[in-house]
């Protein structure tokens, strides 16, 4: 029991918790890199994003509601989605230059 708790804590320390915005950005970036005319396979997306499938479905629904992707079953980036990635990159670069940490 102790060992399990210890190893779990160690794992938590190693893997920094991603907030929702970071997950959105990761998901959108994967979608952007997947653009090659083919349909995006959700299980492959799930593996790349490293989240459970039910959570992936929730994120896709939220991104669809925010108009960042056009479809939940076969997601593709919208213009707003591309803008989000660019904005996120800009703000991260700004924070880095400002000496602020973001995890």
């Amino acid at each position, binding site marked *: 029991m102790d060992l399990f708790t210890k190893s779990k804590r160690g794992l938590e320390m190693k893997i920094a*918790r991603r*907030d*929702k*915005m970071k997950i959105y950005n990761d998901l959108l970036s994967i979608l952007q890199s997947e653009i090659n005319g083919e349909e995006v396979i959700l299980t492959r997306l799930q593996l790349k994003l490293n989240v459970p499938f039910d959570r992936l479905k929730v994120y896709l629904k939220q991104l669809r509601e925010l108009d960042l992707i056009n479809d939940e079953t076969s997601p593709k980036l919208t213009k707003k989605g*591309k803008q989000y990635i*660019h*904005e*996120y*990159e*800009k*703000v991260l*670069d*700004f*924070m*880095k*230059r*400002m*000496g*602020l*940490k*973001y*995890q």
Partner: protein
Amino acid sequence: MYEEIRTAIEVISAIMCFILLRFMIKPYEITGESRYLGLPLGFGFLGVTHAISAFAYYMESYLPIIFSRNIFYIQLIARTFAFLFIAITYYFSKKPNKNSRLTWKISLILFIALLLASLLIVSIPDLTIQIYRLTRSYLRVFNLIIILYICTHTFRSHIAKPDPKTIWIPLGYVFLAVSQYSLLLWQFDGGIYAFFAGLIFRLIFLSVFLIVTYGSFYQIKKRSRDEDRT
């Protein structure tokens, strides 16, 4: 003549702070993390204090002495809180967990309460010019300590991951520290050179921040547009 230059520098500083405020709010907007709220608060307060100073310098000869002294008190206190807000943002930026989020929220509420209380105290009309000068000296020393903390923090984060892009902000804060130090010297010896050096170093600090902000938001924008075209 000096009054006009002083007023002009305060107006320029206020404008630069308000431009920076527009960008300083972005980390909070995009991450939704309230621990980044100190930056826009800090630069917003700085802008307001420069605007108040400009107004006070310009109207100095027209306003009753008690009223103008109260204005100087308000700008003095608000400026210290501005530096404090920026410093606590840096302090909390390295601790992203549940406890630190709660501590940040409590600190923010406390600081705002403290600011309001201080502003109430300085509205007492009995405060003499001697008390004002003493308060100003203490607050300037305190400001210098806060700015030195920010300098150390930003230099450390630059040293941890050296990048030519990240050296400018710590240098900008060094200019701000020199500006505060010059103003402190001016307070003790009354030399006009120390006073104007303080104002000029402040303008350099704000210019460095504007250039860095431009580099982050507009050069990347240009780069991504070029990528889109290819």
